[in-house]
């Protein structure tokens, strides 16, 4: 299945990924090849099969809901590219 450049750009937007024109070309070709390879799954009859999300797990386990200390703000912010007070700082989101 061939992926068009337009589809590649749409997926890149969904993924919040800025691609160069060369990358768009390359991924159109390479993703088309991968999609061709995975198309074989369409040949299987899975109408009566339940999906598996985790192989060995019936359901997620919950831990006791008890209070415990979490990271202090200065530690949580230590890796932030930009911060103000106890907040992460980002560019303006509304004009």
């Amino acid at each position, binding site marked *: 299945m061939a*992926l068009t450049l337009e*589809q*590649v750009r749409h*997926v*890149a937007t*969904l*993924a*919040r*990924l*800025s*691609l*160069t024109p060369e*990358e768009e070309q390359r*991924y159109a070709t*390479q*993703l088309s*090849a*991968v*999609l061709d*390879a*995975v*198309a*074989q*799954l*369409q040949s*299987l009859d*899975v109408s009566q*099969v*339940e*999906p*598996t*999300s*985790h*192989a*060995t*797990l019936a359901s*997620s*386990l*919950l*831990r*006791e809901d008890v209070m415990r200390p979490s*990271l202090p703000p200065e*530690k*949580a912010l*230590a*890796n*932030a*590219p*930009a911060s103000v007070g106890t907040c*992460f700082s*980002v*560019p*303006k*989101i509304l004009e």
Partner: protein
Amino acid sequence: MSQPLTDLTMLELAAALAAGKVSSVEATRASLARIAQVDPKVRAFLRVDEEGALRAAEASDARRRASGPASPLEGVPLGLKDIFLTEGLETTCGSRILQGFVPPYDATVVRLLREAGLPLLGKLNMDEFAMGSSNESSAYFPTHNPWDLSRTPGGSSGGSAAAVAAREVFGALGTDTGGSIRQPAAHTNTVGLKPTYGRVSRFGVIAFASSLDQVGPMTRTVADAAALLQVIARHDPRDSTSAPLETPDYLADLEGGVHGLKLGVPREYFTDGMDPEVEASVRAALKEYERLGATLVDVSLPHTSHALATYYLLAPAEASSNLARYDGVRYGLRARDVRGLQELYGQTRGQGFGAEVKRRIMLGTYALSAGYYDAYYLRAQKVRTLIREDFTRAFQQVDAILSPTSPVPAFRLGEKVDDPLSMYLTDILTLPCNLAGLPGLSVPCGFTKAGLPVGLQVLGRPFDEAGVLRIGRAFEREHDFFRRTPPCP
């Protein structure tokens, strides 16, 4: 001691430490010296933590004198794949987007290693976000295979495997999502164990595909892998997928042998594209198991041919979701000179991720997107059920399954870099195990004429790591492949 200290296995070093023949500081210094000697050529390490390792070694020696060892592996220095969060020590996951990231806490497995008294020598190279089979997708540099420096050590835990093989570390931890512990182990004459999904905590392990990722030991011997698993296998309330099970004694039954066991040989795992020398080596190992009293049983895993397609939909889908967190806001790289938040996200991710990671984010996003979800993602989850049921049926007949780990020996650097499908094929025998959540082990089982290592894979029932290790150990006991040191550097 006649042999170099760094040639000792973990358990041999542990015995020497217990007997007072050597100190942890001496062992750590020996590793650091070996790293300085060989790593300029092997390039297994992204970061050596000399100061931290020596401090831990001194503490270990002091503890042994004062109150006795904290664990049987007290004082044995290890390396860590750069996917494990280490408090205060940069962790990049092989990516530019995390360059300079200094974790504020330890992964649970790192904490367990520290509590058990194992000095940590530093962080080992890997494919970016564990996506790759050759270590060539590392954003920093490729690691070289100590058995032939022109070849890759495999991946994604290639730095860990190369460091163990080159005697830079006594053992290491890796992670395995589709073969990333076992395939590099097979390509470097080392032992790699992927435990059952849920056996080892993933808390603080940078996520790739959360339903497939598992942490495991990478060592020179099966016995070392058992001893290291003993330290890290523990229920962790901080990982909701961690199994609430008691940890068995993995060394107790290790020497139990294979007499009377039924070992399955899946016909679908001996494929046309297989390297003839790999096949010959593995067939010889199968004969050996018969000689040791096991019965070989022909089994069928009929959906094997669909595993690769299933994996390359599910893993990228999960990855595209997991990697959404790298957005330039809270940590890691942030693109400069951008207008607005959307451009900040797009540019940061465009600049910070490498080609393979972008390829998989794109594929995963596509497979999850409106209109394609049912046809790709949901269908792949259903085929995953069929693959899992293949194993369930086979394990009604046999105790474990034997096969080659990788259909080919280590390949040359650059050989497959521009051909993703051919690269993906090298994992064809390891990834069904992840899809089914089973324990899988790779054990050295010989060399090609060119001197490249070959690995034998042992797959077991869920949570039967003890059985898998015992079967691997039965073969190891008959051979000395693990004693062979790589020719270079």
